[in-house]
C-alpha cells in the first residue's frame, strides 16, 4: 500500500513541477524593454543589485531570465532523476569523465560549422558534436573495463584526461580560425547562462523533459539493473543495453548542461541532488522526487543569482546552491542525516544507561532481601533506601556519569531522594526495575539455552519477552530461572 502511494506521489510531484515550468514558459510574450534591462544588468558588476531587481529575476518577470532560469530548473529535474540511478549504479564519477570527453566533439563540430561557412556557433551542432565524442568516451571506458585488468577508476581517469587533452589541443587549433574569437567556446568549460534565444530554450527544455520522462518510464528496469545486474541478466533483461540507455541519458543531460553549468561542474548537477535526497528517505520513488526537487531548486536559485550577478560564472553559483542543499540534507535530514543519527544514538545510550541503573538497583535490593531472609526462596523483594556508593559498586560508572543518570531518573520519577544522601526506587520505578531485570534474565537464559535458534530474535529493548517469543518458550525459560533462584514474577501477568 505504502509503495503505491509513494510512486503516485513521485508522479504527481513530477507532473506538478513540469506543468508549473511549462505554464511559466508559455506566459507573457517577449518584452523588448525587459530585454534591454537584462543587458544593462550585465554591466553592473559584482555589486549587489537593488531589492526590486532581485524580485524581478526571482519572480521571472524578465523574459530572457525566464528562459534561462526555467531551462536550468528543468535541467535540474532531469539531472536529479537520471543522477539517482547513476548514483545507485555507483558510477557517479563516470559522468565526470563523460563531460570532459565532450570537449573534442565541441571543437570539431565548431571547426566543421565554421569551415562550412557559418560562424560555427550553432548550439545544436556543437551539442551534437559533444554527444558524439561523449558517447565515444563512454564506449572506450566500457571497453577498457571489460577487456583489461584495470579498474573503473583508472578507465574513468584515463578517458577524462586524454579526451580533455585532445579537446584542449583541438580548441588550440580552431581558436586560430578567424571566426573563432566570437565563439566563446570556453563558456562550455565554465558555463554561462547570460542569454539564450528561444530556439535554444526549446531545444534544451525538450531534451531535459524527454530524459526525465525516460528515467521515470524505465523506473522498474533501472531499479533492477542498479540493485542486482547479474540477477537482471539472468532474468533476460538486457543489462548491457539498459546500462547504455542509462549512460545515454547521462550524456543527454550532460550535453544540455554544458552551456549552463560548464563541463567541469555539470557532474555536480548529476551527483549532488540525488546524494542529498538519499539522506531524506529509504524509498527510491521518494528519493527521486526529492532529488528532482533539489535539482530544480538549485537550477532556479543558481540561475537567478547568476542573472543578478552576471560576472560570476553561472556554473559555480548553481553548484554552490546545490552544495548548500547537500550540506543541509546531510546534517538535518531526519531519516539518515548526521544529527538525526547522532540523536538516535544518544537516546539509545541514555536508555541503556537507565536500564543498567534500574537493574543495578533491583539486584541490590534482591541481594539485601536474600541476606535478611536467610536465603529463603521467593521472598517478596522489599524496597529499601540505598546509597550512591552501593550503586557505584555494581557497575563501572564514573561518579559524574552516575550523578547524571541518577538526576535524570529522579526527573523521570523512577528514583526518590530518601534523605541523608540516600536514594530509593519510587513505586513506578520499582515496577520498571523488576520488569527490566526480568526481561534481561529471560533473554540471557534464552541466549544460553537456545543460541541455535536465532540471535536475531533477541530484542533487549522489547517491552515484554512474551511479545516476541512463544508463550511455551517463555514458560520454559522461567522454569530455568526458578531453578537458578533468579526468577521474578512478571509485573504484567497479574490478570
Amino acid at each position, binding site marked *: 500500500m505504502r509503495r503505491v502511494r509513494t510512486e503516485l506521489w513521485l508522479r504527481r510531484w513530477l507532473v506538478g513541477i513540469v506543468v508549473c515550468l511549462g505554464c511559466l514558459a508559455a506566459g507573457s510574450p517577449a518584452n523588448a524593454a525587459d530585454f534591454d534591462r537584462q543587458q544593462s544588468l550585465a554591466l553592473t558588476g559584482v555589486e549587489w543589485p537593488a531589492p526590486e531587481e532581485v524580485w524581478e529575476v526571482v519572480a521571472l518577470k524578465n523574459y530572457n531570465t525566464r528562459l534561462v532560469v526555467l531551462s536550468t530548473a528543468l535541467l535540474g529535474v532531469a539531472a536529479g532523476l537520471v543522477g539517482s540511478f547513476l548514483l545507485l549504479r555507483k558510477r557517479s564519477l563516470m559522468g565526470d569523465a563523460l563531460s570532459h570527453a565532450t570537449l573534442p566533439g565541441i571543437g570539431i563540430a565548431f571547426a566543421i560549422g565554421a569551415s562550412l561557412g557559418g560562424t560555427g556557433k550553432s548550439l545544436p551542432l556543437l551539442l551534437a558534436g559533444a554527444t558524439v565524442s561523449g558517447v565515444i568516451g563512454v564506449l572506450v571506458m566500457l571497453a577498457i573495463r571489460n577487456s583489461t585488468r584495470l579498474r573503473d577508476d583508472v578507465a574513468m581517469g584515463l578517458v577524462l584526461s586524454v579526451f580533455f587533452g585532445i579537446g584542449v589541443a583541438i580548441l588550440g587549433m580552431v581558436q586560430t580560425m578567424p571566426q573563432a574569437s566570437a565563439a566563446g567556446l570556453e563558456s562550455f568549460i565554465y558555463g554561462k547562462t547570460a542569454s539564450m534565444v528561444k530556439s535554444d530554450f526549446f531545444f534544451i527544455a525538450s531534451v531535459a523533459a524527454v530524459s526525465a520522462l525516460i528515467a521515470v518510464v524505465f523506473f522498474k528496469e533501472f531499479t533492477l539493473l542498479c540493485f542486482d545486474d547479474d540477477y537482471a541478466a539472468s532474468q533476460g533483461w538486457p543489462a548491457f543495453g539498459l546500462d547504455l540507455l542509462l549512460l545515454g541519458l547521462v550524456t543527454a543531460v550532460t550535453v544540455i548542461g554544458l552551456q549552463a553549468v560548464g563541463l567541469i561542474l555539470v557532474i555536480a548537477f548529476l551527483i549532488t541532488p540525488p546524494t542529498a535526497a538519499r539522506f531524506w528517505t529509504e524509498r527510491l520513488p521518494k*528519493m527521486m522526487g526529492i532529488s528532482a526537487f533539489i535539482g530544480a531548486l538549485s537550477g532556479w536559485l543558481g540561475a537567478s543569482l547568476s542573472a543578478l550577478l552576471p560576472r560570476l560564472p553561472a556554473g559555480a553559483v548553481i553548484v554552490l546552491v546545490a552544495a548548500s542543499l547537500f550540506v543541509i540534507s546531510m546534517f538535518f535530514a531526519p531519516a539518515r542525516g548526521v544529527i538525526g543519527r547522532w540523536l538516535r544514538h544518544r537516546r539509545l545510550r541514555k536508555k541503556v544507561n537507565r536500564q543498567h541503573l534500574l537493574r543495578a538497583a533491583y539486584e541490590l535490593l534482591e541481594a539485601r532481601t536474600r541476606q535478611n531472609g536467610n536465603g529463603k526462596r521467593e521472598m517478596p523483594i522489599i524496597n529499601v533506601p540505598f546509597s550512591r556508593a552501593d550503586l557505584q559498586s555494581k557497575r563501572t560508572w564514573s561518579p559524574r556519569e552516575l550523578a547524571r543518570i541518577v538526576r535524570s531518573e529522579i526527573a523521570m520519577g523512577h528514583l526518590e531522594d530518601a534523605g541523608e544522601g540516600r536514594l530509593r526506587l519510587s513505586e513506578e520505578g520499582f515496577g520498571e526495575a523488576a520488569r527490566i531485570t526480568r526481561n534481561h534474565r529471560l533473554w540471557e537464559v534464552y541466549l544460553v539455552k537456545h543460541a541455535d535458534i536465532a540471535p536475531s530474535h533477541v530484542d533487549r529493548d522489547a517491552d515484554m519477552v512474551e511479545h516476541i517469543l512463544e508463550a511455551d518458550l517463555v514458560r520454559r525459560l522461567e522454569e530455568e530461572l526458578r531453578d537458578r533462584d533468579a526468577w521474578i514474577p512478571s509485573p504484567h501477568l497479574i490478570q
Partner: protein
Amino acid sequence: MNELLKSMSPVGDAAGEDLSFHPPDVPLAIHDLTVAYHRKPVLWDVDLDIPEGKLVGIVGPNGAGKSTLIKACLDLVPKTSGEVGIYGKPYKNQRHLVGYVPQRESVDWDFPVSALDVVAMGTYRRLGWFRRVGKKEREAAMAALEQVGIGHLAHRQISQLSGGQQQRVFLARALAQDAKIYFMDEPFAAVDAATEEAIVKLLRSLNEQGKTCLVVHHDLATVSRYFDWLVLLNMRVVASGPTSELFTPENLEKTYGGQLSLLNDAAKALSHATR
C-alpha cells in the same frame, strides 16, 4: 521500436531450437562445458545430467568452479565451449522455468528499497517492459515472504535486516518467480541456525512439489542430510549421483585431493552420516 523491444523481451516467446542431445524431460543437461577467465580455465569439459525433482548439492573445494558452473548455466559468464540445456532447450528460451538466488555479497544492501520491493523483482520478468508492480505482484511477493517466515519484515529497508533475513529475502524472490528449477549460490553461507533450518524446510517443500534445486554448498558435515543428489566438482565433475552412493571417502579424496583438514572434516561427516 516495438519490434526491437520484442526482440529484447525478457518474456522470450521464441520457440528456440531443440538441442538434440538434451532430452526435454531433463531439467539440466550440460554437455562439454568449458569456461575460462582470461587464460585460466575454471571448468573443464563438464558433462552433467540432473534428473527431475532432486535436491542437488554442488560440492567441491574453494576455486573448484562451483559458482562459475551456476553462472555459466544462466549465461552470466561466457562459455568457451559446450552447451547447457534446460528441459531440452537453451537457457535463453527457458528463463521462465529458472529461479536464481545469487550470493548475498553480490548486491549493495544499503539500496533504498524494502524487502517487499526486492521480492517483487521476482515478478518483473512476467510483467515485462514498462508495466508497474500491481496488487497481484505485491500479493505474490508477500506470500513468498510469508513462506520464508519473514512476512512481518516486508516494509523494512533491506539494510535493517540481519544476514540470515537478507538471505531469506533472496530466497523469497526466487520463490516469487514460480520456477521449476532453482539455482542457489551458497545460500547457507554465514546464516544463523534458524535461517539454515528455514532454508532446509523450504528446499524440502520445493522438493515435494517436484521442483529441482541446485545448491552450491560448502559444509561437508551437512551435505548428506540436506541433499539426495550430489555433484562433486573440482574443475571437472568428479562424480554425480545419489548421495547415498557418492558420499564415500574415495570420492571425497578425488574431489579434495590433498586438503587434509577438509578430509578430516569429511571423515567426521561420514561417520556422522553412517551413524
